[in-house]
């Protein structure tokens, strides 16, 4: 049916509207624009657009004008409701004018009459929706009809059933997105393998790194994904409907640790299978707070333990003190005591009468002491002695008590601390010390006595020594005198014998001469003995005077040789003297050196039956020492006897009828003389081959 062009509406306006519709893809938007256009270009009082919802048969109100909210409240219309005038209109090929509708058919408009224009692309198909317009009168104007057709085509084009459904799904999805994005906790939807399906923006921050993200961010995101999957898989394996666990992730921007509580639950969908919905609640701060509380609690526990330990230690310490310690309050009652104190002030057994009595006595003594302390509250320390007793044995126990007072902050006396010190030991020590002192005094006295005795004995010894020296001197003097006394008669004997032998008193007969010769030789021997004894006596008494002179050894040899000439002649021995090299003159006691050499030579002559005797003088390199050797080819001296020959009265043949004569003191005197001259006599000898006696002397005798 041809429709006259709308009055007052130019084609330009229509074109603009059609262009809009062509660009629009939204049914609702298009419907609203259409209503707007209608209101602008027609005299409508009410307008509404109903469109069939996608898959259902519900008709939805997508745009309206001038409709009261009460009218559209709870308005529903189902396509299947064929009796409803609007559904009838939907299937009508042309717009329908409805008027005076029964009240049980609800319509969105309040007007009694209105036009219902089915919205479709052509008249062959049922309408997808309705355009309801009131206020135009019974007859529709051409503009409204045009609009109805245009909107019908638009709705048909845009939606169809499918399109409308999709639009609605998308809207819901958007809504869901904005809802889950609005939640501040990260939310993730995953499949059972942990593959991400949906994540809200907070979750994305944790698990997804944008293109421009730093390396650290990307790695943090990767790590978080791994941690999350791992956490999820454990719950998936357990097939727990609702799992709650802690999950430590990394803040990709800060790099700090974030502690989450992971709540994951399974969502079962009949068509799409099973999903896992995970909600992460940030409990980092909570954890920190918890840790702090735990830490405080631990500290508290430690402090409590320390206080307990301290108390325990204190108990141990005061118990370990060997001295009894007691603390009494201002009433004088014991509030604390250590183990040693308990032994004194607590009865060991209740049935021990004696012990109980002693304990009570101890307590009474202590109380009187403490009450003394209390009355003298001005003093800090109070010291005294208490006589206690051992509760078990009754042994008296003198103690020294030292009390100190403990005052409160207000200066009020709180406690008295008393330490008891056992004086038994101290008293015993004092006693022992006294004993020791006495012993020491006694010892000192004895030492003094002993010292005095020693001094006395020393004095005695000294006197004895002096007496001995005197005796020794007297002996020497005696011997000297005696030898003088011996000599005087001997002198006469020798003299008269000599005179007789020299025929001073007349011619003597040969037998008389023989006898006189025996007298003479025996007297000479006796004289020699006396002289030798005198020499030894003088040497031993240290009274052998030395007269040092300087002399040559050659002359000395000549002198000795000439003195012994008669003997040499008788012996038939070859006697030679040698002075080897430049032997210096000797400074010594000439007479004594001569005496030694004379002795050695006469010995050599005496003990050499045949051969020779040689006297040699020599000196060492520095001419500091001279040696006079007397060498013979005589009988010799066995080695074991070589020391003996220097002893007093020694001759190797000590039989009375010895063949060699002499006093036996010669070598002994020689050795003594050599010693006082600072020299030595050495002997080398081979029995049967001869002996060599060597006198060594310093070339310059030291002053004696």
């Amino acid at each position, binding site marked *: 049916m041809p429709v006259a062009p709308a009055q007052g509406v130019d084609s330009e306006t229509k074109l603009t509207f059609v262009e809009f519709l062509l660009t629009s893809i939204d049914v609702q938007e298009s419907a609203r624009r259409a209503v707007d256009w209608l209101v602008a270009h027609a005299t409508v009082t009410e307008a509404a657009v109903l469109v069939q919802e996608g898959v259902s048969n519900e008709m939805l109100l997508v745009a309206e004008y001038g409709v009261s909210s009460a009218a559209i409240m709870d308005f529903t219309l189902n396509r299947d409701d064929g009796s409803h005038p609007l559904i009838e209109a939907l299937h009508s090929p042309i717009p329908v004018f409805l008027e005076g509708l029964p009240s049980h058919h609800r319509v969105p408009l309040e007007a009694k009459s209105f036009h219902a224009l089915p919205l479709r692309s052509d008249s062959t198909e049922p309408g997808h929706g309705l355009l309801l317009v009131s206020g135009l009168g019974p007859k529709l104007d051409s503009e409204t009809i045009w609009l109805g057709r245009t909107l019908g085509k638009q709705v048909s084009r845009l939606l169809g059933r499918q399109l409308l459904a999709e639009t609605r799904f998308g809207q819901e999805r958007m809504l869901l997105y904005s809802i889950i994005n609005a939640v501040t906790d990260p939310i993730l939807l995953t499949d059972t393998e942990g593959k991400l399906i949906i994540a809200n923006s907070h979750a994305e921050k944790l698990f997804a790194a944008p293109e421009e993200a730093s390396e650290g961010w990307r790695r943090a995101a990767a790590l978080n994904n791994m941690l999350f999957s791992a956490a999820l898989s454990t719950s998936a394996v357990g097939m727990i409907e609702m799992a709650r666990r802690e999950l430590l992730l990394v803040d990709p921007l800060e790099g700090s640790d974030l502690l989450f509580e992971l709540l994951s639950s399974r969502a079962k969908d009949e068509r799409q299978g099973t999903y896992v919905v995970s909600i992460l609640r940030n409990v980092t701060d909570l954890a920190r707070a918890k840790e702090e509380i735990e830490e405080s609690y631990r500290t508290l526990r430690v402090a409590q333990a320390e206080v307990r330990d301290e108390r325990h230690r204190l108990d141990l310490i005061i118990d370990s003190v060997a001295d009894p310690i007691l603390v009494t309050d201002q009433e004088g009652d014991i509030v604390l005591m250590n183990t040693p104190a308990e032994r004194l002030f607590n009865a060991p057994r209740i049935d021990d009468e004696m012990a109980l009595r002693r304990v009570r006595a101890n307590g009474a003594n202590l109380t009187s002491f403490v009450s003394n302390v209390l009355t003298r509250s001005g003093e800090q320390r109070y010291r005294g002695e208490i006589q206690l007793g051992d509760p078990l044995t009754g042994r008296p126990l003198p103690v020294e008590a030292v009390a100190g007072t403990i005052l409160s902050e207000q200066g009020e006396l709180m406690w008295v601390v008393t330490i008891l010190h056992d004086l038994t030991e101290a008293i015993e020590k004092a006693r022992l010390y006294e004993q020791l002192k006495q012993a020491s005094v006694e010892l000192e006295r004895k030492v003094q006595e002993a010292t005095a005795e020693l001094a006395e004995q020393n004095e005695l010894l000294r006197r004895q020594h002096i007496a001995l020296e005197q005796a020794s001197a007297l002996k020497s003097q005696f011997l*000297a005198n005696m030898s*003088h006394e011996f*000599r005087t008669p001997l002198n*006469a004997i020798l003299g008269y014998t*000599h*005179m007789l032998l020299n025929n001073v008193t007349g011619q003597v007969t040969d037998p008389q001469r023989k006898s006189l010769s025996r007298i003479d030789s025996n007297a000479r021997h006796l004289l020699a003995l006396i002289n030798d004894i005198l020499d030894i006596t003088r040497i031993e008494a240290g009274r052998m005077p030395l007269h040092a002179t300087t002399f040559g050894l050659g002359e000395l040899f000549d002198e000795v040789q000439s003195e012994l000439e008669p003997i040499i002649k008788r012996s038939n021995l070859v006697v030679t003297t040698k002075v080897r090299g430049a032997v210096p003159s000797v400074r010594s006691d000439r007479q004594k050196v001569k005496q030694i050499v004379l002795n050695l030579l006469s010995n050599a002559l005496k003990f050499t039956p045949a051969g020779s005797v040689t006297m040699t003088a020599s000196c060492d390199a520095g001419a500091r020492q001279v040696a006079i050797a007397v060498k013979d080819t005589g009988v010799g001296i066995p080695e074991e006897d070589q020391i003996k020959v220097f002893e007093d009265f020694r001759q190797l043949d000590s039989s009375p009828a010895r063949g060699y004569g002499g006093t036996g003191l010669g070598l002994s005197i020689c050795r003594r003389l050599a010693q006082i001259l600072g020299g030595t006599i050495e002997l080398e000898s081979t029995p049967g081959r001869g002996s060599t006696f060597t006198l060594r002397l310093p070339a310059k005798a030291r002053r004696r």
Partner: protein
Amino acid sequence: MSAPVRIREQPLVLVVEDYQDAREMYAAYLQFSGFDVAEAGNGIEAIEKAIELLPDIVLMDLALPRMDGWEATRRLKNDERTRHIPIVALTGHALAGHAEGARDAGCDAFVTKPCLPDALVAEINRLLDAHRSNAESVKDPARSPRSTKKRS
């Protein structure tokens, strides 16, 4: 002052010795040997005899009663009349000090007992010879080499 010179056929020896046996033995032997002999038994007697007889030589035992030989020698050597007479000390004591004492007292020679008579005679002759030659060569005996040696 010159010493008085007595002309004698034989020199006179004054033997001073307290031990009679020894004194007479020496006297007998000296007479046998051609000397005149005078004898004295102690120091005082020795001084008297020396001053009286002015012997040619004195044989003086040192250990003497009344006055010992040292003192007697000292007195004789301090006396103008007897100073020139040589004195031979004779002692049995060989202990230290005796010889020194004798020399300090003024003895001209020293002989230790026992001394055989002929040894004594030999010593006396030696001393007399030395003394005689000194007296002849030097008028003043105080300047004789012997005296010089003694004082040095």
